[in-house]
């Protein structure tokens, strides 16, 4: 495999600027006041993730972790810089987002699946498996507004899993408010099929990161301050100082 093919995600010199709008700007104001207040959420991010790597991202609140995932997922574009991804990217950032409350479970599976980039035939083929996995067989013909939030999350996760992504993006640890399903989801992500996939996860707890990942990235104020193996001394030092109250081996 040559170098190009073995790379899953490549970010070169990525910068992301947000305009701070304390209130929604109006068209008139824009021309009268001119430039808005701005804020750089990411600065000079250079990152290469190889196929099959599991990378954990950690850092303080508001440091740009979610923005980084959004840029990799293509949900938003960088102000400067380039993003390349090799293979299908699926983000599990907002699982229950995108369901239409008035449509039935089945209709929503089709809609959500298409939005995630699954082909129509493939949805038809996997329909039973999606419903079984989410464990909502009884309610599949009723409108989604009658679903509990746990059911919606389960359905969202089930669709995402059946989209067979090459690159998986996760924001924080998964929780469904349902012990059994959380275990099932963890098992799926830990299965041999998913072990081979490129995964990027955002964590708040270094303990979870240590269980799942081999490589860590620390982001502070929009810049990568550390990128390397967990064994590295700098990483250990950072975790010690920021998560002092937790035991770290």
């Amino acid at each position, binding site marked *: 495999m040559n170098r190009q093919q073995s790379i899953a995600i490549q970010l070169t010199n990525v910068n992301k600027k*947000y*305009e701070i709008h304390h209130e*929604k*700007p*109006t*068209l008139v104001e*824009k021309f009268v006041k001119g430039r808005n207040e701005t804020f750089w959420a990411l600065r000079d991010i250079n990152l290469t993730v190889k196929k099959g790597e599991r990378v954990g991202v950690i850092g303080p609140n508001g440091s740009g972790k979610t923005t980084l995932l*959004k840029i990799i*997922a*293509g*949900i*938003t*574009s960088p102000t400067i810089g380039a993003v390349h991804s090799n293979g299908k*990217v*699926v*983000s599990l*950032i*907002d699982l229950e*987002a*995108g369901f*239409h409350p*008035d*449509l039935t479970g089945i*209709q929503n599976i*089709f*809609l*959500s699946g*298409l*939005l*995630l*980039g699954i*082909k*129509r035939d493939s949805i038809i083929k996997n329909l039973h498996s999606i419903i079984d996995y989410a464990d909502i067989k009884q309610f599949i013909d009723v409108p989604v507004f009658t679903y509990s939030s746990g059911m919606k999350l389960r359905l969202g996760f089930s669709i995402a899993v059946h989209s067979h992504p090459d690159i998986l993006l996760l924001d924080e640890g998964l929780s469904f408010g349902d012990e059994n399903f959380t275990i099932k989801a963890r098992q799926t992500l830990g299965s041999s099929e998913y072990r081979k996939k490129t995964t990027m996860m955002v964590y708040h707890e270094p303990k979870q990161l240590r269980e799942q990942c081999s490589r860590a990235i620390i982001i502070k104020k929009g810049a990568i301050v550390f990128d390397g193996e967990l064994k590295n001394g700098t990483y250990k030092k950072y975790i010690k100082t920021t998560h002092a109250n937790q035991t770290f081996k």
Partner: protein
Amino acid sequence: MKESITHFWELLWGMTEKELRARYKYTVFGFLWLIANPILQMLIIGFVFTFFMKEPVEHYYYFLFIGLLVWNFFSLSLTKATPCIVFERSLIKKAYFPRAIIPLSIILSNFIHFALAFLLFFVPILFLGTLSWGTIPYLIGATGFLLLFTTGLSLFTCALNVRFRDVNFFVQAILLLWFYASPIVYSLSQMPRDLLWLWRFNPITSILQLFQHALLGAPAPGPAMLASNITVMCIITTLGILVFRDESRTFDDWV
């Protein structure tokens, strides 16, 4: 490449189905509303305006009905497409997909309504005896222009509305005026000749005239009118596509 185009259409159709299903979900009369609405408008306007007309328009009720169908498609698409990105913010935040799918699916679902109502309307027209095979090119042209202009303008207002929410109010206000600035309740032949240049800036004029000519034998748009209307249409549509393409990359930052 071919695969992504197929997926684009699958997704567009999926979203259009959603629009159609969700709209009439809990209504008793369902699709009947799409025909009842213009009929009621036609009856009221037809009754009132016949008292004002100096020289009556031939087949006035039919004339009105065509105008109202076309206008309802245009104004409904524009009012629904303008705030659509803001309404569908949860989709924007979920995944990457061509953002234009959202306004396009609204326009397509409205177009299906329009086409159905139009087919029903064809039955009484057949008895009127104004139709001929030669009208088909006019119909195709008119439909094409209508779709092109509605899409272009909707993309423009929809992309701008993400940042500047007053665009939505502006569109609502302008549509009220636009209705009277288009030959729906009147015919251009009733207007003073030296003011006709005013209608050249309004692309809806030619579209309406083409439909009225094709179905009722009303006068077709003159070459100058057609040419200037098409120019305005092309400018707005190009602008719409360019602005949407540019803005859609960062929709997520604003919703």
